[in-house]
């Protein structure tokens, strides 16, 4: 899973990713790594170091290597990585490192940009970040960079163009084929992405699409695990979105995962939950194995259980006896000394008996409940008798109802049984 970057750099990737440069020095060492990712810590890329980087970025290709560091893992479950020329470069002990970085960028840019597009696109779907970045860096930079980079960024833009929500397969389009319209679109998207990256980095929730980032936005480009830099940005993005969507689904399934906003932690939670469920099943099966000698009742039980589940929302109507099955919809009736066994039929015998018993208990409880409302008065007996009759009627009806319900359930289950 994604590893937390050292030195404050946040390295996020879903699949396990490439070995990202954990340090600025790393960028120097691994030109090939540069193609993968350059991580800039948040502290690094803010502003102050822009100038030296800008100066270094005068090379035309440098513009392509804009990298935005994504240090907020929480905000972006998917790692967005773009190359930034700021920040991380600032930490370079000398600009030589940056210089080393620069020439490699073109090679990197071609492939990584698509990744940047995909990764960045996760947040903003704006492949235009290259352009935006250049513009972002514009304020400090000369026109040289701007002049140099836009063309270089055009390359990226075109590649990124492929990854936008339109899902066009332009990623492999020749860089020279960009159009001004695309540039505009990309610019807008990119700036939106930039702003997003900024808010990810700065936690500033400004979503101005054209907002000029005050600081340099670092977009980390993260290479997927086992994938070359030239992988299809579009496919990557689609895959990422699928995976994130499924993670969200899982997040809803697993209880208590609303607060967790990290993929690694989510996966841990999921694993824990699955393990606990499986252990529960084992435990229950052990109990059932020892406790369950009578299986004749089980089908009835299960049917009743289904009924209970169907009526699951009802609070216990018996009131006095919460211990009874809570979902019986039958209202409590006054005490009735009924002992007639429910003779609804052999298959329902146990079920109705069960229900009957519970209801009877409820009735008994109700009956013995001291009624302050005056049924104990001179009319108490009268009331009692009336209620007794009522109880008889209602209990019979109740029983009928129970039978009917059970019958329906059996029919339903019967169909299932047949199918099964």
């Amino acid at each position: 899973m994604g590893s937390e970057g050292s030195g404050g750099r946040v390295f996020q990737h879903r699949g396990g990713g490439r070995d990202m440069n954990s340090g600025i020095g790393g960028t120097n060492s691994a030109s090939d790594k540069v193609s993968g990712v350059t991580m800039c810590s948040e502290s690094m890329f803010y502003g102050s170091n822009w100038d030296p980087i800008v100066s270094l970025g005068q090379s035309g290709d440098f513009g392509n290597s804009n990298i935005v560091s994504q240090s907020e893992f929480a905000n972006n479950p998917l790692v967005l990585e773009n190359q930034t020329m700021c920040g991380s470069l600032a930490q370079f002990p000398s600009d030589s490192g940056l210089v080393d970085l620069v020439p490699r960028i073109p090679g990197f840019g071609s492939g990584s940009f698509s990744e940047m597009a995909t990764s960045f696109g996760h947040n903003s779907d704006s492949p235009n970040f290259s352009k935006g970045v250049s513009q972002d860096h514009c304020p400090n930079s000369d026109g040289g960079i701007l002049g140099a980079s836009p063309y270089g960024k055009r390359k990226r833009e075109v590649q990124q163009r492929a990854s936008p929500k339109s899902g066009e397969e332009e990623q492999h389009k020749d860089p020279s084929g960009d159009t001004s319209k695309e540039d505009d679109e990309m610019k807008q998207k990119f700036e939106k992405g930039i702003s997003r990256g900024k808010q990810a980095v700065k936690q500033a929730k400004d979503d101005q699409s054209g907002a000029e980032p005050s600081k340099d936005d670092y977009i980390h480009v993260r290479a997927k695990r086992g994938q070359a830099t030239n992988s299809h940005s579009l496919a990557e993005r689609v895959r990422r979105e699928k995976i994130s969507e499924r993670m969200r689904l899982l997040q809803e399934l697993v209880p208590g995962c609303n607060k967790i906003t990290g993929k690694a932690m989510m996966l841990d939670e999921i694993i824990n939950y699955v393990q606990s469920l499986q252990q529960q099943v084992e435990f229950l099966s052990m109990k059932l194995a020892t406790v369950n000698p009578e299986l004749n009742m089980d089908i009835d039980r299960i049917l009743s259980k289904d009924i209970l589940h169907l009526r699951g929302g009802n609070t216990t109507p018996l009131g006095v006896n919460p211990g009874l099955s809570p979902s019986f919809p039958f209202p409590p009736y006054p005490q009735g000394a009924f002992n007639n066994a429910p003779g609804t039929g052999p298959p329902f015998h146990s079920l109705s008996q069960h229900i009957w018993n519970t209801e009877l208990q409820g009735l008994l409880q109700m009956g013995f409940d001291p009624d302050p409302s005056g049924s104990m008065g001179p009319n108490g007996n009268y009331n009692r008798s009336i209620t007794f009759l009522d109880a008889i009627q209602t209990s019979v009806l109740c029983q009928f109802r129970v039978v009917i319900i059970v019958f329906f359930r059996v029919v339903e289950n019967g169909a299932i049984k047949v199918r099964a």
Partner: protein
Amino acid sequence: MNIQPPNSSSIKSRFAVKFVQAMKRLSKRRGMGDRYKRYRATRAAARVSLAAAVGPERAWSRAVLRRIKKRRGLIGRTTTNPRRNLRGLVPGGKGMDYCSLLSETAHYITCLQAQVQVMQDMLHLSSP
């Protein structure tokens, strides 16, 4: 590729029926005293019934049913808890790509929840 999430109640009823049938057969079988064997058989019955209730439309249920047909160690998987790896937990998770693994996990979790509920209810009903 996204199949609809499972209908919990239908899975519950199907699983309940199959599991009860399996338990009946189990109780009639000889050599099943109150022993560890019975527990293992119950556990196997639970897993098989769940997979059978789900049917072949899911990769994990297919994997479980495949394992039965091969007569391999169906039971030993969960007792010795595998390493904390999602692929090891979800049946058939080893040969899947990540995307499908996640969706299978989601479905598997739903089915496990249904199974747990049914078994709990059975337990409560059989010995109130």
